[in-house]
């Protein structure tokens, strides 16, 4: 195990600690980059947009992922296997390809606009790309497998006879769902939801490719600071802020669920 730890310390922890130091020393100890971040309305707005898009895409993927998991739990093995294969395939396809496919689907003369026009529903193409809608759609598309798999694996471990028992005791279908099925699936919802929310906060590819100028998230700003403005200390400070928020959510995750569950998200 020692070689792995040494490699991680030298090639992972050390580089990260360098940007922490860079964000705090310029050349003497200073908090000015952090103060600038929290004082500037622009960056507060970006933080807000980051949270907004993360919440929307996590919420959307939770709803869709939950329904998929619910159906998977109850479907016949053949249907279940077909569904699982489709979700796995989507999960394994290159992220860039998935984002690119949404450009093709949503752009001005893209598939959606073509179809709407063909049926005479619109006269002018809708603006579907480079807006909040396209970013949330693209991110939801990527997150669904991360949600569906942990909820499905938790659901597989619950006994459906409990639902029969609840009905037997006089519960209606809704009551059975809200009092039995849903609470039992909560660990899966928590695991998938928190993991996806962590991923969403630091997401870069989708807002960059499918978002407009107003949908740039904190990751995109970090890249702009580094590549276009060469402002490394400020970019480092932003990275550390993002990292701290991420670690804080992960800390909650670990307290509530234990990090062993992380694997649930990528189990095949």
């Amino acid at each position, binding site marked *: *195990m*020692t*070689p*792995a*730890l040494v*490699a*991680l310390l030298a*090639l*992972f*922890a050390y*580089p*990260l600690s360098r*940007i922490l130091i860079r964000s705090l020393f310029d050349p003497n100890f200073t908090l000015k980059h952090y103060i600038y971040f929290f004082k500037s309305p622009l960056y507060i707005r970006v933080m807000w947009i980051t949270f907004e898009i993360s919440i929307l895409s996590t919420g959307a993927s939770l709803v*869709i992922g939950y*329904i*998929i998991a*619910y*159906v998977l739990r*109850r*479907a016949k093995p053949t249907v279940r296997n077909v*569904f699982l294969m*489709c*979700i796995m*395939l*989507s999960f*394994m*396809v*290159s992220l*860039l*390809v*998935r984002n*690119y*496919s949404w450009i*093709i689907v949503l752009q001005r003369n893209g598939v959606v606009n*073509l179809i709407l026009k063909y049926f005479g529903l619109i006269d002018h193409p809708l603006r579907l790309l480079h807006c909040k809608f396209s970013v949330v759609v693209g991110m939801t*598309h990527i997150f669904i*497998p991360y949600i569906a798999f942990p909820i499905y694996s938790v659901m597989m471990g619950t006994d*459906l006879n409990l*639902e029969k028992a609840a*009905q037997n005791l006089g519960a209606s*279908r809704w009551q059975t769902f809200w009092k039995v099925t849903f609470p039992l699936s909560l660990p899966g919802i928590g695991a998938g939801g928190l993991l996806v929310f*962590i991923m969403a*906060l630091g997401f*870069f590819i989708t807002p960059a490719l499918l978002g407009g100028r107003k949908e740039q998230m904190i*990751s995109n700003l*970090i*890249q702009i600071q*580094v590549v276009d403005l060469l402002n490394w200390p400020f*970019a480092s400070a932003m*990275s*550390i802020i*993002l*990292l701290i928020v*991420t670690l804080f959510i*992960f800390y909650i995750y670990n307290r509530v669920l234990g*990090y062993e569950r*992380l*694997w649930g998200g*990528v189990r*095949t």
Partner: protein
Amino acid sequence: MGGREDMKQAGNAKKKWHDPLHIGWPLWLVSGASIFFLLVPVLLLVPMSFGSAELIEFPPTKFCLDQYRKFFSHPMWQGAVLTSLQVAALTSIASTILGVLASMGLVWGNFKAKGIITGFILSPMIVPLIVLGLAYYVFLAKLGLIGTKLGLVIAYTPLTLPFSVLPISATLKGFDRTLEDAAMNLGANRLQTFIKVTMPIIRPGVLTGAIFAFMIAFDEVVIALFICGSTAVTLPKKMWDVIRYEIEPMLPAISTLLLLLAVVLLVSVGLLQRRQAKRLEAR
């Protein structure tokens, strides 16, 4: 069993009994549409890949292999594919070796702070890629490794380590260590025991981890944006530049090839898992 029948009678006679296994049509509709939503955008690229290589069009107006021909005859794309393959293969090897060592320590070791160390080894999974990108940009610039394949391997090895540790430790947990004692009793040394006894048994987990590590390194673009430079351009980095700044009508063909790669990797992971399940059953 007749359990359901009994319960039916026991339940309120007026209320309709609802079978927990029953899936109503609205659920079928939503879940079917979701599966459609997951796959169709990507599948649309397949017919487009046989269209013109001059302009992006949907639906394609002609059927030809121009895009593929263009892709396979373009030295810059060839170079990018080669770089990506080399980097992903080396990363996968490095991460698998470290992953096997780390997993043996984590599963068999008996020491304090196991939880913290496990968390540390898995932590690259949750650090945002952009933060890693910046960190490696600063780190590799100092070492003069920006724009080198070695630099990319250095950045990707920690990133992929959790994905090899997790499946490997999962198989190790099911491994009976008395087999090792038996081999050593029969005169095998530690290395022989590892190669002849341990490795064959944990191989499915190791290969699954290696495939995941390969896939992640092969597809990674965010860190690559920072450290590729202009001399070690990977396939995702090249695709990124094209999607962002140019109109390149052969992207559907490249996407289709990557879709094929995903299918191949999915099938191999599936086969490995089946093999492992069989092995566990046999014991």
